[in-house]
């Protein structure tokens, strides 16, 4: 939304936003905690409120068309987009394209946690969606693997909803999330926080029953005789995000396989001219305020690209 508004401000008059969800705002809608907007709006907002600020701005610009429930399935190097919308199959050619496809969460498989494969293992963001959007509690006795911000925030959310958070287990020496979240989400509720520990095994047949936890040294090697067990019915995985860039990869954009982000010099730019990437799909950001400011530059870059083309 920030990129579209900025492209409009910089002279682009025919803009289409394709959103796969039923509403604008993306992940912000499930981030009901406060702490957004301190830099950008100089106010403390919740995720939905932050998103609403941009939706309100968009609604004042009729030249920016929004198409919801529109799922892009194909992208070519000439910027031809194919997208599905309930009941229709659409193809559209863009002169300039800004991708703001965000991230997905890393999974249990990507951090190699041994054990059985019972029900009760969720990524932290999925649990967040279940609680804050669907109104479902994924478990009552929770262990959180990794200390990313979403995991820390969900630790507090589970406690507030009456569940017990048995532990946060982090393999590194310190929290991977912001310090403020360690204080207000973990320490405030006396949740045990184990750094330099990892889960050595998940137990349970149909449902998670317990986890084995073990200390690791600075090379992440297991320390002998340090194993202990924690009884739980659910495990949240909060071990980081991967930018979602399969569409631009399909179009032929050069991608760094380690970070899954486009390889090119300059903010928001890719190896295909006129194809820009912003927000968490460009790089993983800590703070949404910086996403908005950087995405405005993407809108500006797209506008400049189109102006150059006209000359």
């Amino acid at each position: 939304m920030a990129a579209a508004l900025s492209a409009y401000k910089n002279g682009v008059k025919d803009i289409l936003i394709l959103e796969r969800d039923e509403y604008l705002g993306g992940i912000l809608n499930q981030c009901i905690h406060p702490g957004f907007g301190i830099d950008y709006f100089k106010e403390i907002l919740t995720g939905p409120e932050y998103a609403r600020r941009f939706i309100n701005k968009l609604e004042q610009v009729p030249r920016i068309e929004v198409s919801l429930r529109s799922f892009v399935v194909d992208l070519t190097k000439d910027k031809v987009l194919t997208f599905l919308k309930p009941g229709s199959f659409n193809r559209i050619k863009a002169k300039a394209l800004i991708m703001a496809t965000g991230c997905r969460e890393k999974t249990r498989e990507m951090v190699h946690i041994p054990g059985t494969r019972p029900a009760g293992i969720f990524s932290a963001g999925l649990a967040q969606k279940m609680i804050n959007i669907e109104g479902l509690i994924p478990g009552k006795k929770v262990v959180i693997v990794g200390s990313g911000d979403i995991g820390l925030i969900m630790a507090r959310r589970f406690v507030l909803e009456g569940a017990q958070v048995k532990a946060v287990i982090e393999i590194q020496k310190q929290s991977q999330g912001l310090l403020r979240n360690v204080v207000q989400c973990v320490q405030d509720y006396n949740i045990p926080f184990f750094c330099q520990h990892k889960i050595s095994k998940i137990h349970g047949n149909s449902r998670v029953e317990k986890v084995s936890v073990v200390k690791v040294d600075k090379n992440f090697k297991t320390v002998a005789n340090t194993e202990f067990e924690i009884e739980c019915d659910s495990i949240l995985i909060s071990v980081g995000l991967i930018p979602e860039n399969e569409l631009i990869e399909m179009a032929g954009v050069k991608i760094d396989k380690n970070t899954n982000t486009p390889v090119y010099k300059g903010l928001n730019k890719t190896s295909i001219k006129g194809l820009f990437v912003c927000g968490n799909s460009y790089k993983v950001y800590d703070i949404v305020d910086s996403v908005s400011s950087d995405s405005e530059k993407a809108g500006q870059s797209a506008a400049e690209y189109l102006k150059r083309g006209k000359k």
Partner: protein
Amino acid sequence: MNKTLTCIECPKGCILLVKIQHEKVKEISGNICSKGKAYAVSEIEHPCRMLTSTVCGKGLNLRMIPVKTNAPIPKSDIFKAMKEIKKLKIRKSVCAGDIIVRNFLGLKGINLVVARSCSRI
């Protein structure tokens, strides 16, 4: 007595060194801005937190409606607040900013407000 706090006012997370005498803050250092000072005083003398949660919607386009306290509430009231929030239901269209409970928990000036608009279906 000296105490070390991590400021939670913004993502910077300044480490604050606080000198305390008779449960009152006497001196603060380590803060980059004035918010840090205010946070340290509040955290030592009457710790407060902003509370956000969700309220069940009935007949609305959202199943859960995010809500927040319009200002931080005493930390010791958080679970009492959650108990009250769980009793609530929203059945009519509301706009972000609408007050659902005025003087929430009997706290003067504290309102529980809607954080996301929703409408009847």
